[in-house]
């Protein structure tokens, strides 16, 4: 209707104006407190509170003294802030006869995590690359086995792996542990990398082949430089998983190489008289700090990488 009017009376300004004044005109008004926004942000804030609550309680508790904790309200902020639990958790808490807290295992965890993350990602990315771009007969069979393997509870594999490592002569060594982490990280990582490389335009790969690049040439010169997001995803998953691992670290190494989580377990599970909740919480936060920092530092890339690695099937 309005359109017809406008065309018919294109020349007569007055009528156009009077018509236009009646209805909506110009930019649509935006209200900050629209019903939609209230529901949207309201929901988000409530959910965010649920997610933050445990962290809040952990932090608050770790800053309280034991007498205050016994008062009972876990949500109240500390009346008197003390960093003693943190110091204790890091430097003096005892596990058995060793009273040097988490500091003992921190560097071990670093020494375990770095090579494990690098090796597992290196192997899984090459797997994914071979599976998506250089398929050979039987490759899918192995991949299927690998994916099914992702569903096997780790505990079941403890014994067979002990035997495998023993036969390889690397039982109890750092190398052995790195290998175990690589093996158990392989299924999901390979899946991610395979999906990612499958989403790379096939013609790019063909162009590189015509240009004379081989299996490794294409991998290093073409694929690697364009795969930063998926590597970030893999790194985050692996750092989290390996840093938080307790079972493998303790079963496949010796006390000299025990990761930080062993100390965490010992601090949290062994009780010297009263359970020191504040020290437990401080130890918990300290142990979780490394993966948390990795998350906060690379959150954006994480979503982008997931988008690249998981969306395409």
């Amino acid at each position: 209707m309005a359109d017809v009017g406008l065309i018919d009376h294109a020349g007569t300004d007055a009528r156009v104006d009077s018509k236009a004044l009646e209805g909506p005109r110009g930019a649509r008004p935006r209200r900050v407190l629209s019903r939609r926004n209230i529901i949207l942000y309201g929901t988000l804030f409530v959910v965010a509170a649920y997610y933050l609550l445990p962290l809040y309680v952990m932090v608050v508790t770790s800053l309280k003294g034991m007498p205050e904790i016994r008062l009972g309200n876990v949500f109240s902020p500390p009346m008197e802030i003390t960093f003693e639990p943190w110091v204790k958790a890091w430097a003096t808490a005892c596990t058995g006869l060793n009273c040097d807290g988490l500091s003992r295992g921190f560097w071990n965890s670093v020494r375990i995590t770095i090579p494990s993350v690098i090796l597992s990602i290196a192997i899984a990315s090459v797997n994914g690359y071979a599976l998506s771009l250089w398929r050979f007969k039987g490759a899918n069979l192995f991949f299927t086995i690998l994916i099914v393997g992702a569903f096997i509870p780790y505990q079941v594999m403890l014994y067979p792996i002990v035997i495998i490592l023993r036969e390889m002569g690397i039982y109890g060594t750092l190398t052995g542990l790195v290998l175990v982490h690589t093996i158990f990280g392989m299924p999901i990582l390979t899946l991610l990398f395979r999906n990612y490389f499958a989403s790379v335009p096939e013609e790019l790969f063909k162009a590189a082949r015509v240009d004379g690049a081989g299996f490794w040439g294409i991998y290093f010169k073409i694929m690697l430089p364009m795969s930063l997001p998926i590597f970030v995803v893999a790194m985050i998953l692996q750092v989290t998983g390996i840093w938080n691992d307790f079972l493998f670290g303790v079963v496949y190494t010796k006390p000299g190489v025990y990761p930080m989580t062993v100390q965490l377990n010992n601090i949290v599970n062994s009780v010297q008289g009263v359970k020191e909740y504040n020290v437990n919480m401080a130890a918990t936060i300290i142990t979780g700090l490394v993966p948390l920092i990795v998350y906060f530092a690379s959150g954006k890339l994480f979503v982008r990488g997931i988008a690249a690695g998981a969306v395409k099937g």
Partner: protein
Amino acid sequence: MPSTRPNQLFRNLNAKIASIPMILTAVVVFLGGTVWTVVYSFTDSKLLPRMRWVGLDQYERLWNTSRWLISIENLLIFGILVLIFSLVIGFVLAALLDQKIRFEDTFRTIFLYPFALSFIVTGLVWQWLLNPDFGVQSVIRSLGFENFNFDPLYNADIVIYGILIAALWQGTGLVMVLMLAGLRGIDEDIWKAARVDGIPMWKTYLFIVIPMMRPIFITTLVIITTGIVKVYDLVVAQTGGGPGIASEVPAKYVYDMMFLSQNLGQGFAASTIMLLTVMIVVIPWAYLEFGGKGKRHG
């Protein structure tokens, strides 16, 4: 000029060499380990594996053990609930974050950070929050609601929901990110088309967007399901299987049988059943998904 056709084995040789670690892992560790486990499940191995055949005895006992039955039941309830809730919550959160909101980064980080924490930590924190003496219950009671009862970890009927709360807290963030990534991959034009056609937003999500996100749902499903089958640390840290045996799960049964009861055969039988269940579901799917149609090289 190549005069003879290259040997089939050496075709694509580099790819094959590069896949050796994967092949070894698949065949030696996963396949070999599984076969080994299955074989020893027919023996009466106690502390150490030994070849003394007892046929199906271990399985007979397994299905006569109330703890195993409860474990299976728990895993079923827990698994279905985790699947539904984490997918629904994860998707809803992702859809909310996808509304071009402010502070998206902050919200996303908040929802995701628990994933960086181990299950052991998660279990401990929630064990504490749900402790009736100084957790949520006592706080709400101290506010004047004297009759408020919320002690899932000490009530056998609802303990599995207590674990569910913690599991969702830890895991939905990842699901949300996966979903968000999927939503971001949806063509803008779809939304425009739906708006022009006057389709309500929820309908667009339900009937258009979600079907388009099939691949990401599959990836998500794999990740969630592997987590569910393996759930162990969380239960140990949060309830230790209690109260009573109300929150036992199969992975814990396997572990306890192997190392606490020193009855490897029984543990292997239980894990064989777990594997079998997983395979019945996973293999047909994996075959459809990854098998067949090699439209690329080789």
